[in-house]
């Protein structure tokens, strides 16, 4: 006989604990033994290229998928054995907006409220609050079918907050949003975190993770290939990157030689003729001067922060796959 699950969990117990999680779909291994922990009240960013297992992880943690191996708990409740208890405490915004097209925004939120056993009055109040908070007042009474992608996304986010979840799962919450609305969603996530909500969010953008997450976990082919704070991950990539693209392809070789002279490093050259290597403002300056002296015209020259692509390049020794997403919405 197993002891009854504890209803009160020690505060030092992580909000989410994942141990050796495995999930296969036929011949595809979506998760090949994932371990991760999310501290209470923290924001964890789950990064990875298409098909790396981010959505699968979120679906297992939100009780939508049964894992084939390993174990996962949310606030101490096992996601398989104790799924109803998990559902009482979580909110989920999936990768694809899960709202009812044929209902209005208000009706969608009230529906969720009623399903969460709020009284009619509370459901209405909570709906008004969220409509206001997510700037949907104008469209509140309109059918969701007429919403733009960004409005639908925000409504979906609002729907996951109706029950004031302690743990929130956000699967690529800003994909398809314009910069203004992306910033707004970021503000919402920060505010939720400040209120004590634990957030696990997946993203393809290092910048987003950087803005929001205290901890990062990088997945590739269903495995954790790196984890740590954004700062430590970026340090792995090596700070800033210098990139230069000569105006004429014929000059690529000469610029590579020049960079070799200046740094004793070999730059990476991509198919567009762009040369990249880790760099500093001082190097940028020296390179600029030399290019000017040698009379090599350049189309682009500058420093940038590492992108997720750079992280992958460094972590896996190959670029992140750029193929179209092949996942099923099912």
């Amino acid at each position, binding site marked *: 006989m197993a002891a009854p699950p504890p209803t009160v969990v020690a*505060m030092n117990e992580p909000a989410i604990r994942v141990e050796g999680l495995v999930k296969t779909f036929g011949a595809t291994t979506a998760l090949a033994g994932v371990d991760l922990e999310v*501290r*209470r*009240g*923290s924001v964890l960013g789950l990064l990875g290229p298409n098909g790396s297992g981010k959505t699968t992880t979120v*679906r297992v943690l*939100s*009780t*939508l998928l049964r894992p084939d191996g390993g174990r996962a708990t949310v606030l101490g409740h096992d996601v398989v054995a104790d799924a*109803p*208890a998990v*559902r*009482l*405490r*979580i*909110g*989920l915004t*999936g990768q*694809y*907006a*899960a*709202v*009812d*097209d*044929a*209902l*209005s925004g208000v*009706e969608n939120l009230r*529906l*969720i409220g*009623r*399903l*969460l*056993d*709020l009284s009619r009055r*509370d459901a209405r109040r909570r709906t008004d609050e969220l409509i206001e908070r997510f700037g949907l007042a104008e469209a509140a009474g309109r*059918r969701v079918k007429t919403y733009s992608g960004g409005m639908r996304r925000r409504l979906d986010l609002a*729907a996951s907050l109706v*029950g*004031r*979840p*302690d743990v929130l799962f956000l699967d690529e919450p800003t994909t398809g949003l314009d910069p203004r609305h992306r910033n707004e969603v970021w*503000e919402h996530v*920060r505010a939720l*975190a*400040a*209120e*004590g*909500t634990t957030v696990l969010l997946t993203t393809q953008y290092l910048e987003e993770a950087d803005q929001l997450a205290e901890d990062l976990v990088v997945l590739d082919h269903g495995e954790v290939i790196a984890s740590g704070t954004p700062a430590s991950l970026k340090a792995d990539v090596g700070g800033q990157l210098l990139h230069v693209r000569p105006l004429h392809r014929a000059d690529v070789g000469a610029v590579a030689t020049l960079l070799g002279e200046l740094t004793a490093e070999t730059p990476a050259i991509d198919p567009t003729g762009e040369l990249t290597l880790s760099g500093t403002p001082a190097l940028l300056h020296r390179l600029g001067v030399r290019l000017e002296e040698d009379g090599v015209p350049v189309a682009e020259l500058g420093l940038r922060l590492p992108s997720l692509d750079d992280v992958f390049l460094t972590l896996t020794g190959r670029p992140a796959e750029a193929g179209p997403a092949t996942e099923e*919405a*099912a």
Partner: protein
Amino acid sequence: MTTTTNTATNTAPVPTTVAQPPPRTGARHGPSTLRHGATLAWRGLVKTVHSPEALIDVTLQPVIFLLLFVYVFGGAIAGDTSAYLQFALPGVLVQTVIFASAGTGTGLADDLHTGIFDRFRSLPISRAAPLLGAIGADLARYATSGVIMLVFGTILGFRTSAGPLAIVAALLLVMAFAFALCWVFTALAMLVKDPRSVQGLGALISLPLTFGSNVFVPASTMPGWLQGWVDVNPVSKTADAVRGLLLGGPVAGPAGTALLWAAGITLVFAPIAVTLYRRRT
């Protein structure tokens, strides 16, 4: 000035206690399943009110069939069009509700497809609630489409000798049959998944079922093998019972057989549909 508007980095201390517990009861069994089912049925009804096209859809096809048959074949089949309308309308009522019942499958497939079921499944409600809700809302749709067809028939000139009670009984009978069939369409939706294929395959079931019956033409002119099928086809029995109720004639016999069929179909297909549904969700 010391005013700072710091919104960038948020390093709020991790609270040592979880913010106020959410006001959720977490009741998961018994009455809550029914309550959540009713809430989801409400959703289905609001959807129908917002987009009555869906309801018109299921009624329009039978209306077109009715018009075609009454004015093109009616004279040839029954001698004159108004006599034919009297004969055909009760059967077309059955057909209408069968088409509406096929819509149950499409609606469920749609919900699975768009991910709204994922939302429901992440909520602390019983797994049966969405299915109950869908079927609850659809029963109301069956009734509405039946009433629309009766009204339309009356406009065309259909006249019933029946009292209100008999009319209600006729509607209930066709609803019972549609309820039985909705399990077939639900099972189909769980197997096929893609809403459009569900619609197409649903038509493959509902068209032979309604045309291979005595809805439009009395069976007496058909070849023997077809008569054999038409005679056992539950649609014929249901249509006979509805004719009896609306126009006078035997009711108990065909109604009894029709209800037995409905019970049989439900007993076979409801468990299959529920099993597939549980596997899918």
